[in-house]
């Protein structure tokens, strides 16, 4: 059973005269209970992809289905029962004027089918579930620490018992010690509630820890996709290799690696012809500048490189 199915999704933005292609003909699926990690640098389109799947933005073309049903056919209440988000910045993702209790209760109230006492009971259970005490219910977001806020956001996302949670950089704004707490909580909840995650992050170590499969995104395209162990053990795309090389593991004495990508940064409004990675690619050949690579299938994924 596939939880998320994306077919040829495309999304562009108009910025003045320039057209920015944020997501360019992306297709993938996530099976139920799986965790797909999406990694890539800022501006690669990973957050836009998350917003397309959440229904926050309409796709220009292509099709997105969650739990076997087309996203466009779902009404807001049905959609909310299937898929929920956890955003990066817990300072911005909670209404500063609402009490924790009301924030967590919001999805229940929007359904308009629960009684007051049901709402109160469910909210309380959920707060306990994410490790917040009862008294926290009466607090305002400003009175909580970053980690506590992210717990509130997780409680809000799970209170309707959705099938799928889209986590958009859920720990990037947190300190390392708190990041570990939140990652542990997310894994535990996934196991206990049978959730499917789409986990977006720029931190490869975090993705390796939580994801069963990883997709690497570059300038709006998924350039490589493999089960996590395979991708980390045998990356094929030169961009994936560069990303892995630039991870600074806490191992003293190794020095800082040379990732060899040059200093020209990608511009999503001006996508290079041929392989879009070729201007930065350390092993590019002349044909890379002219021929657009097709996806080369692998047993459990694919890679989009002429030289792979």
């Amino acid at each position, binding site marked *: 059973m596939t939880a998320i199915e994306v077919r040829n999704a495309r999304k562009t933005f108009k910025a003045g005269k320039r057209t920015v292609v944020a997501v360019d003909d992306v297709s993938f699926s996530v099976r139920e209970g799986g965790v797909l990690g999406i990694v890539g640098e800022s501006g690669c389109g990973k957050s836009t992809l998350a917003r397309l799947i959440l229904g926050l933005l309409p796709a220009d073309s292509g099709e997105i289905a969650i739990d076997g049903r087309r996203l466009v056919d779902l009404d807001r209440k049905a959609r909310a029962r299937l898929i929920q988000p956890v955003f990066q910045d817990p300072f911005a993702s909670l*209404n500063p*004027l609402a009490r924790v209790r009301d924030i967590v209760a919001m999805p229940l109230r929007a359904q308009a089918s629960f009684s007051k006492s049901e709402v109160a009971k469910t909210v309380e259970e959920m707060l306990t579930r994410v490790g917040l005490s009862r008294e926290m219910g009466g607090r305002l977001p400003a009175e909580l620490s970053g980690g506590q806020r992210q717990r509130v956001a997780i409680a809000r996302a799970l209170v309707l018992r959705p099938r799928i949670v889209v986590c958009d950089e859920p720990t990037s704004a947190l300190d390392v010690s708190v990041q570990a707490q939140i990652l542990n909580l997310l894994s535990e909840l996934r196991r206990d509630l049978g959730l499917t995650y789409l986990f977006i992050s720029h931190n490869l170590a975090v993705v390796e820890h939580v994801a069963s499969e990883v997709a690497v995104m570059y300038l709006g395209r998924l350039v490589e996709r493999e089960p996590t162990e395979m991708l980390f053990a045998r990356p094929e795309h030169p961009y994936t290799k560069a990303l892995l090389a630039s991870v600074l593991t806490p191992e003293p004495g190794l020095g800082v690696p040379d990732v060899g990508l040059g200093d020209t940064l990608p511009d999503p409004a001006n996508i290079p012809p041929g392989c879009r990675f070729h201007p930065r690619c350390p092993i590019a050949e002349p044909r890379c500048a002219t021929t657009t690579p097709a996806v080369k299938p692998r047993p459990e994924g694919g890679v989009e490189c002429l030289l792979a």
Partner: protein
Amino acid sequence: MKRGWRNIGTWVGAVIVGIAAFCALFAPLLVPHDPFAQDLGKRLLVPFWMEGTDPSHLLGTDQLGRDYLSRLIYGCRISMMIGVTVTIVSGIIGITIGVLGGFMGGRVDDVVLFAVTTRLSLPVVLVALAVVGLLGSSMTILMFTLGLLLWERFAVVARSTTMQVRNLDFVAAAWCAGCSRFRILAGEVLPNIASHLVVVATLEIALAILLEAALSFLGLGVPPPLPSWGLMIAEAKDYMFFSPWVIVIPGIALFVLVLGINLLGDGLRDLFGARSDA
């Protein structure tokens, strides 16, 4: 140091507005005389700080022998009533338009911007004069005319703050939670822009009070014998050379009230600004 001064300003403003609101609410209980009762035997009595004052008329009397303090207090009631009503009318119009434009964006926003531009190109005083000239002067007409003319600041502020709030993740989260548009607007957006709108409201009250005074001074605002401060100044201008206090007292009252409202508005802005930083 600066913060201290600001704080004092806020308190001064709050006290002035508080007194004015008190006078407006309880005017009939506060006045020592009937503000409409004429006594031609006691015309233009001098106020308490001058020689030959009548102790029962603290601020003296006007050219028809009406108690000036009583008229001042009733005038305050009229000013506050006009200020508040105009602000409520213009606030409802402006906030609705601005929030819709900011939240919906696209075409709707284009229409809103066009409406604001159109409104900005209308000269308020001239339009108000024309309307009052055509329909005759009454308090209701004055309040609605001004209310229909003064919404643009609400619209502009509501629109820009809504745009900021709309893009925050908690609005996205509410959308994902399955909330309706109305629920998102009323529950998530409006409370978070309210502090900005309160500041605009104070400025609008002050502006409406000044405009009312100006129109009344021109004879096109509040009809006599209602004791509006603008009208009091207009009626007093014939006597200002021999009895200057008749023009000075309502003038000062107007100045102090508008200053107080503006000080309070500044203070509120600082307060809300500081809170949103925290």
